[in-house]
């Protein structure tokens, strides 16, 4: 039963370089019944996403090695990854940057410290709901 329920669980990949932010989000989502993976930068995020094919990606913008935009650029060129919706989590409100990210086709954008865990879950649910509808 456990195996089947795990299969039915929707997978979410959290890409953020700061464990202090990444871990509570992961824990909150797990508590909500999601299957959560974590990555510390864009490159690691790409690797895990290709391997695990998540249903949704939560993406931080400022990261070492490969930042959010770098990740989005690679995702766009990848036929497998570009089907996965992305919610952008950013600590800055640089319009230029957000507009570039929008051009890569992100589903939502949430400003860190402005959203509660409930809002995050709501956004994720609505995102996955849109996906489920044909």
């Amino acid at each position, binding site marked *: 039963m456990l195996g089947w329920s795990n299969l039915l669980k929707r997978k979410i990949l959290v890409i953020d370089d700061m464990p202090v932010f990444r871990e509570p989000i992961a824990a909150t989502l797990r508590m909500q019944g999601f299957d959560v993976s974590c990555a510390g930068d864009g490159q690691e995020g790409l690797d895990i996403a290709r391997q695990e094919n998540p249903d949704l990606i939560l993406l931080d913008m400022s990261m070492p090695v490969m930042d959010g935009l770098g990740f989005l650029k690679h995702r766009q060129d990848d036929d497998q990854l570009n089907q996965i919706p992305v919610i952008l989590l950013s600590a800055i409100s640089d319009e230029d940057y957000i507009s570039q990210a929008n051009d890569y086709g992100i589903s939502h954008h949430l400003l*860190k410290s402005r959203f509660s865990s409930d809002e995050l879950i709501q956004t994720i649910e609505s995102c996955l709901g849109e996906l489920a509808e044909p």
Partner: protein
Amino acid sequence: MRSEGITNKVWLIIGILMTGFLFSVVVSYIHGYNTIKHIHRISDELFHDVQNSQMALIAFEDQVKHYQEVFMLGEIELLDLVPDTVQMVKDSITNIKSRKNLDIQMRVALDETMHLHSAYSRQANRIFSALGNGEVLEEGSEQYMAYENSVLELGKNSQELKERLSGHAKIFKDGFDNELIRIAQVTRLQGYFNLGLFALVVAISLLVIYYIVNRSISKPIQETIDQVESVTEDLRVERAERERKAMAETLKSMERVIGIIGHELRTPLAAVRMSSEYLLKLDNLDKVSFESFMTPIHDEVIRMSELVNNMLEAARLNSGSVKWNWTSFQIEGICQSAIKVVQPLVDQESVEVNCFIEPDITEMNGDQEAIQRMIINLLSNSVKHTSEGQIDLSVSMSDKDDHIEIEIKDTGNGIPQHVKEKLGKAFVLNSGVVGSDYIKGTGLGLSICKAIIAAHGGEMKVDSIEGHGSTFAVYLPIDLDGPVSGNDKLEVEYV
């Protein structure tokens, strides 16, 4: 070049004035010459006519006088004098007539007079000769009556001739006087004309001079003034543009700083919020979960407090109105305290922290707390960037007299070239908060160090190779009496 131009213009002006003056003089001379020539002609011709006409009258009067004397005194010899006077009258009138420009009417009148005079003289000679020859006529006889009538006629004729001659003399004299009056008038008019001409020449010269002065002096001056005004205007616009740019730059920099502060605070705040919300949702809070989420909350709160403190400290140090607590203090004491502060942050298993202080070095003057903060900041930097090896804090006498060298040397990551250039500039380090320029840290720590070193009259040198560690060396005078002001532009020297 311009002064030469002006000299030429001055000479030109003098030239114009001289030419105008010479022109006036020449015109006056021509007028004077014509007047003199006219006077000469008048004296040659008219005066000659006056003279001759008067001589004719005088000669005729003498002639008549001789006849009277012959008649009254009965001296026939006196008639011998008459031909001379007759000739004189004739000559005088002939003289007048000899002039070319004589009026034709006058010429006719003179001919008539001469004719009358000849007739008169002939008749008078005949009668007075007869009378002088003693032809005594009987009174009342026919012959006597004829003589008497002739003498009476002669008397009338002489009177008429006298009037004619005197009329001629008067005409010539009046003509001469009129001519003199005319000359006087013409001369006066010429005087006025010359004066007018001179005034005109002066006026034209002044106009030309005004034009030249206006064109070659005033105009260039005005043009220069216009140019200066234009340049001033340009400079003003340029300065306004510069100020605007500086203002825009300041605004941009402020926006960037605010953005960075936002970033620096938002992420830990978001983390704290997420962690606390998760903890609040948990029904059964076990100690492990509590610690694993409470510890990051605690760490982030500490980090945020430090950030705020550092920002306030940097702002205070850069405000230019810092109050330094200047004392003499033990160097070893503050070094040990600084190491104690950073020790908990060090991974004890892989990083070793050492402290070497030359035995001769004991005390220095300065703000003890500030120097200790500087050492803590430099040590913290090393701790952050050193994952294995060692961090050495050493204090020794510098090559420079009365200076100590505080050196913090680590075996950490070293500083990349692009970061070196931004060292010590608050909020510049991670101006690229995202992307390939991603660098942790605000730059506040080194900015604070720089301000402290500057106030202590010191210098800082950095020697670092990426991947091979960094050495920060601070040189401070040990017996400075008080803080140095105006040294806030201290630049970090890279070795």
